[in-house]
């Protein structure tokens, strides 16, 4: 009995350690990926925190207290402190991000208010106007509010004096756009990829494993027709799966994060135009084509479905990592070269669409480059279908 168990253990180990690819993806790759992903996430977070630090921000201070002037003036070399009153029109400029600034208003005679013992029912209130969707403005707001919190004298910060008074000039729509642009690209890409993963490995590696691909290869059909047929059909099915997931996300996310309108909380629903939806659909289709192409190539290289799954896993992690990147960015990239990078380009375009920052040049570069990459993949798959080593090696 024991010797049989040992024989089985030896056989399982021989199977595992004899398969270098399986060994790599099971033992070496997880640690390697965690190291890479966490390092990237760390530097991403670091760059997000320091983002805007180089930008010169103006802080306009009304009724600057003498006691605070030296501290406020020495916060940061990139912070220009101007002692100047401001109006509601200036505050409105913050909303449109036309003013890269923070507006700070102290009550008149702030220092003298603390000469008499504080009345807890009428504490002086300091107003800080900023825009949380503008990284630089948001950063200075956090520094100043934290500094005031440590001032050591009793006063309040940003207590609204009436219902209409807002200190954060970010609109509900712009907050919604920011949230969608950081969350949805990743979710969409993951859903699309899971759709591709569900069908592509069995479609090519499965056909190799079952011996049905050879039956197709002895028909007069050209190998490129077979390659194109596989990629387009897989893309179509994955697209349906992705659209279904997308509708589910779009309908459920506002409820999930309790920001549905009618609850008194800000309305963060979709406020997107037909144009936005059209671009989104085009980019989703381009992404699916690229995913189906890449997974098809790996699936064709794989010996069987299990092997295909092993080969696709690292690739899936890379795609997921690309999906995480918008979380650490302030909107989509303006560098057009980025839109030549497959997968990442789709994520960037989706980020731009959701952040209401979409322009046509990146969209066109993304779609054209994805179509070119798909054509290259069809060529590659055709070569694989022609290669007896790839098709018939066991």
């Amino acid at each position, binding site marked *: 009995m024991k010797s049989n168990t040992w024989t089985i253990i030896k056989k399982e180990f021989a199977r595992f350690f004899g398969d270098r690819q399986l060994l790599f993806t099971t033992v070496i790759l997880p640690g390697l990926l965690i190291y890479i992903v966490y390092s990237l996430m760390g530097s991403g977070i670091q760059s997000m925190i320091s983002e805007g630090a180089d930008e010169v921000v103006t802080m306009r201070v009304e009724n600057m207290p003498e006691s605070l002037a030296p501290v406020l003036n020495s916060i940061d070399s990139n912070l220009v402190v101007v002692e100047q009153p401001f109006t509601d029109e200036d505050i409105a400029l913050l909303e449109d991000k036309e003013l890269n600034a923070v507006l700070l208003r102290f009550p008149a005679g702030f220092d003298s208010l603390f000469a008499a013992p504080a009345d807890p029912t009428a504490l002086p209130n300091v107003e800080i106007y900023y825009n949380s969707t503008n990284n630089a403005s948001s950063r200075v707001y956090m520094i100043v509010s934290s500094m005031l919190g440590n001032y050591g004298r009793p006063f309040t910060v940003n207590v609204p004096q009436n219902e209409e008074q807002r200190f954060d000039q970010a609109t509900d729509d712009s907050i919604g756009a920011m949230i969608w642009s950081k969350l949805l690209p990743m979710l969409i890409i993951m859903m699309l990829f899971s759709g591709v993963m569900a069908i592509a490995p069995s479609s090519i590696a499965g056909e190799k494993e*079952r*011996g*049905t691909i*050879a*039956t*197709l*290869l*002895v*028909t*007069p*059909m*050209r190998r490129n027709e077979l390659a194109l047929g596989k990629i387009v059909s897989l893309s179509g099915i994955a697209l349906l799966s992705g659209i279904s997931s997308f509708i589910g996300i779009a309908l459920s996310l506002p409820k999930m994060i309790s920001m549905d309108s009618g609850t008194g909380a800000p309305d963060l629903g979709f406020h997107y135009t037909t144009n936005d939806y059209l671009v989104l659909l085009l980019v989703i289709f381009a992404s699916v084509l690229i995913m189906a192409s890449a997974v098809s190539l790996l699936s064709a290289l794989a010996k069987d479905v299990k092997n295909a799954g092993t080969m696709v896993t690292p690739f899936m992690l890379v795609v997921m990592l690309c999906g995480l990147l918008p979380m650490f960015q302030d909107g989509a990239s303006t560098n057009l070269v980025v839109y030549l990078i497959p997968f990442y380009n789709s994520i960037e375009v989706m980020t731009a669409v959701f952040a209401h920052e979409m322009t046509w040049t990146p969209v066109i570069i993304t779609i054209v480059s994805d179509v070119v990459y798909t054509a290259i993949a069809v060529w590659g798959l055709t070569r694989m279908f022609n290669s*007896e080593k790839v098709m*018939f090696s066991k």
Partner: protein
Amino acid sequence: MDEILKVNGLSKTFTLSRKQQKIEQGEAGVASGKRIKVAVDNLTFDAYRGEIFGLLGPNGAGKTTTLRMLSTLIKPDSGDAVLDGCSIVGDPEGVRSKIGFLTSELKLEDFFTPNYLFDFFSQLHHVDPVTTAQRKARMFERFGIDKFAEVKVANLSTGMKQKLSLVISLVHEPEVIIFDEPTNGLDVLTARTVTDYLQELKGEGKTIILSTHIFSLVERLCDRVGIIIDGRMTNCGTLDEVCNGMTLEDRFFEIYKEQKGGDE
């Protein structure tokens, strides 16, 4: 006689794994260090329209590799074969449109029904729908598939699957039919159905190239035979020419001993 297949100097080698290399060296008794296994070595033969040509040889002689090259599944390292005017090297699609290839290596999708698969492969061969329907009715009835036309392949018996594979390989009524070990793994009834059908096809003027290691099959079916040993064609001709007054089995072993130097 009308020559329909001309095979000229066909060769094919495979690269051995390190472990296989050691085994081969051990068998040869020398440490040659060769990583190449010659599967087919300069093979030349012809086949004529309306005949059954058999490739006879032991396992590993190169029969299946030859047929896979003729069906364009794999490419020769050198040499060529011209099949009804189409080169296997220069016009593989043309070759595939003229042949029906059947081997246990080729499987049908379990998920689909015979009805669907017949239509699907007919479309790939550009057979028009009317002709497809006529052929399907005739072939399904001939092989008793009509009763199972809407049963998924997964649920068919092994014999029925074999018959269906045969029918599917002939949806386009090819001029040349290539069969690798046509009766291997078949029960006696199905094997008989297949061999009878091969003779019917011959009667219709079709050319059949088959590989086998079964002497009786060659004696019963083949007009001409080529004996392959270690990838080389040692003898080729009509049964009478090859047998030289002996039985095919005796003659084969005589040739085999000559080739192997009498040490087998």
